[in-house]
């Protein structure tokens, strides 16, 4: 993984000093809350319902054991013993005190971490496929490019006061696990016929109150032009993005209102002015950054499969875990493991300090010291030998981390909702917990198969409900929480926005409604292999409407 050099270390510690000074000037009254707000946001500090919240960047979701242990230390020392992993591969602490935050940031800087631009109207933490560098279907590891983008976007002098936040995601595989088409810029790394690396570039995807799927603006952007082209997009957005209404300020609205062809022409014109200039990436620098992400030296893992098979035969729980949480790896005898942060009935994405330490230990002992955070709010050990899976499973089970539900109905994405968030209009975590309890039976979950349920507690859609196979949106109606259900959303290479099925359900009714939708799907699918999305795309919404609202 990427390691800071002297420059990076100075950069991050100077940034901490700068923020410490800003906090002091805020406390002294030299900065008003309005003036301070964007400064604290660009250092990850939100003011929530009950307290400040600190969001720490985990660039493209990659971290090592030492960094994970430091997060555990922060959880224990400055919070209430746990942290919350987010859909943008970051971690949030919900209970720090403002005066402690500069100290927290300095302790993070010691392990090459920061909270830079995890919030605010700027370029946010760059995300990537959580199986990068490991997945069997990967064309190339997208993380070197994510790292280059992370650097270029850090404290960018021209793009720190954009109309609204700006999110970039990168994938290096044809199967998109990074949801690139619902980002402001989505990049899919590809190779041309001669083996040259480039990107398919999508612009203007996003969720929120106006969900839109990103539009393809470049079929093949040569890797050398990555920064120049990104700068061109950002400049067009900074100059022309709407600033009169924060709900219409994302680049997706600019794409929509300007029209794709005209906007593409604007971007190309801007790019023509700056291409082949200082932002052109030298091949030597791409190589140098790529070297940081060189795969670990994989063993010739002979006989692993037999060891794993034997253990599975003796342990049904391990069998369930291997069936769901083990993913194909490019190296023979290896796998990537999902560590579910969705135990039945618990808050999605939460991990205690002790659990973080268990994961850190396992990564060191079995996983080449690498951990990933997925945008589905789980953790991943990307490189483990298959023969070690039984031992890892046993250790995870002891820590309450062995839920065998990756990709199943209880692997729910949920935003913090009304339990924490100042913007929320309804609770999301308790809804996730109740659905999880309703479908607790492992047999039933496996019978249902792959299913993505995503829950947002308000229209801002942090829980990505628009792209859930089943999406749930909490709204407030006459002082009561209501939940709108959308069906047919997806955030992979065939991204689609879910459609509202009908009138919403009360907090008490919503779990029954979800169960009806799931049972209807199971009843009408042609084979157990036909997943929810395929079935929904085949039959449409009618059977689900009838199940939920009757035929009348």
């Amino acid at each position, binding site marked *: 993984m990427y390691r800071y050099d002297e420059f990076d270390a100075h950069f991050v510690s100077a940034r901490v000093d700068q923020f410490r000074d800003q906090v002091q000037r805020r406390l002294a009254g030299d900065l008003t809350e309005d003036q301070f707000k964007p400064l604290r946001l660009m250092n990850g500090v939100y003011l929530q319902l009950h307290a400040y919240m600190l969001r720490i960047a985990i660039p493209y979701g990659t971290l090592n054991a030492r960094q994970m242990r430091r997060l555990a230390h922060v959880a224990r020392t400055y919070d209430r013993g746990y942290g919350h992993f987010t859909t943008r591969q970051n971690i949030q602490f919900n209970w720090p005190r403002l005066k402690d935050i500069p100290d927290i940031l300095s302790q993070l800087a010691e392990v090459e971490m920061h909270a830079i631009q995890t919030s605010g109207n700027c370029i946010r933490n760059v995300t990537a496929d959580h199986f990068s560098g490991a997945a069997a279907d990967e064309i190339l590891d997208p993380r070197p490019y994510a790292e280059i983008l992370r650097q*270029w976007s850090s*404290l960018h002098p021209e793009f720190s006061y954009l109309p609204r936040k700006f999110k970039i995601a990168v994938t290096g595989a044809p199967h998109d696990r990074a949801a690139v088409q619902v980002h402001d810029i989505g990049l899919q790394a590809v190779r041309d016929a001669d083996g040259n690396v480039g990107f398919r570039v999508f612009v203007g995807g996003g969720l929120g109150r106006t969900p839109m799927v990103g539009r393809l603006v470049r079929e093949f952007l040569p890797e050398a032009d990555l920064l120049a082209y990104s700068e061109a997009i950002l400049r067009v957005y900074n100059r022309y993005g709407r600033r009169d209404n924060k709900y219409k300020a994302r680049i997706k609205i600019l794409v929509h209102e300007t029209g794709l062809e005209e906007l593409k022409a604007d971007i190309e014109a801007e790019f023509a002015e700056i291409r082949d200039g200082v932002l052109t990436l030298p091949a030597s620098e791409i190589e140098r950054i790529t070297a940081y992400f060189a795969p670990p030296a994989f063993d010739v893992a002979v006989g692993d499969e037999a060891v794993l098979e034997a253990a599975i035969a003796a342990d049904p729980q391990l069998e369930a875990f291997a069936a769901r949480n083990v993913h194909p790896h490019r190296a023979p005898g290896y796998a990537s493991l999902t560590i579910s942060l969705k135990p039945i009935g618990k808050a999605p994405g939460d991990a205690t300090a002790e659990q973080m330490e268990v994961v850190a230990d396992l990564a060191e002992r079995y996983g080449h010291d690498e951990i990933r955070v997925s945008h589905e709010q789980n953790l991943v050990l990307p490189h483990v030998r298959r023969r070690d899976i039984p031992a890892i499973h046993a250790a995870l089970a002891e820590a309450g981390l062995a839920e065998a539900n990756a990709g199943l109905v209880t692997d729910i994405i949920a935003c913090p909702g009304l339990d924490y968030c100042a913007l929320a209009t309804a609770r999301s975590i308790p809804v996730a917990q109740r659905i999880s309890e309703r479908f607790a039976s492992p047999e039933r979950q496996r019978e249902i198969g792959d299913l993505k349920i995503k829950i947002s507690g308000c229209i801002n859609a942090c829980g990505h409900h628009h792209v859930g196979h089943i999406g749930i949106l909490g709204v407030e109606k006459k002082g009561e929480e209501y939940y709108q259900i959308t069906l047919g959303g997806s955030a992979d290479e065939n991204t689609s926005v879910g459609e509202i099925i009908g009138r919403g359900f009360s907090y008490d009714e919503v779990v029954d409604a979800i169960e009806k939708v799931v049972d209807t799907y199971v009843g009408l699918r042609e084979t157990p292999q036909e997943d929810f999305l395929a079935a929904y795309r085949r039959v449409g919404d009618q059977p689900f409407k009838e199940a939920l609202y009757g035929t009348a």
Partner: protein
Amino acid sequence: MTARLYRAGGFVADEWTHLDDEAELPAQGAFVVPLARFLEQAADLPQGLRLAPLVKAGDDPASLAGHLAALELVVVDFAKFSDGRGYSTARLLRQRYGFAGEVRASGDVLLDQIPLMRRVGFDAFAVVNEPTIRALEAGHDVDVPLYLQPAERAGEVPAGARSWARRPADAQLS
């Protein structure tokens, strides 16, 4: 509240006076006028009358391209510090149109944005905010003096192997 003009090294007297669209243009002196008025009147200025444009967020600096060679000053207005369009304006003036005169930020100019403004090409700041004036007078520097993008401030030099990294010429990375 009148603005005080800050350039590298300290506060200085401002020889330019702001005029709005209605105010009559005196026969001589140095005046900052809104961009549209500047474009109307720049062609035939009497001897002794100097004009500089006030470019607001949303104004296109391209309209100044033909005038820049003869211009001493362009003022870029920040009605709200959180509106970042002025950063692109300044950068375009320097990068695209090669403007070598003074680019001055005016309006809601605050201490914590000045380091970014410098890097996109601003070299003068008309400051109203009292805490900002105090901090500048005290030489309170809030920059992170290591940069991860090439920009427009003169004197920045490459830092290390990365083609996109820069540092101020006078700073040593020790």
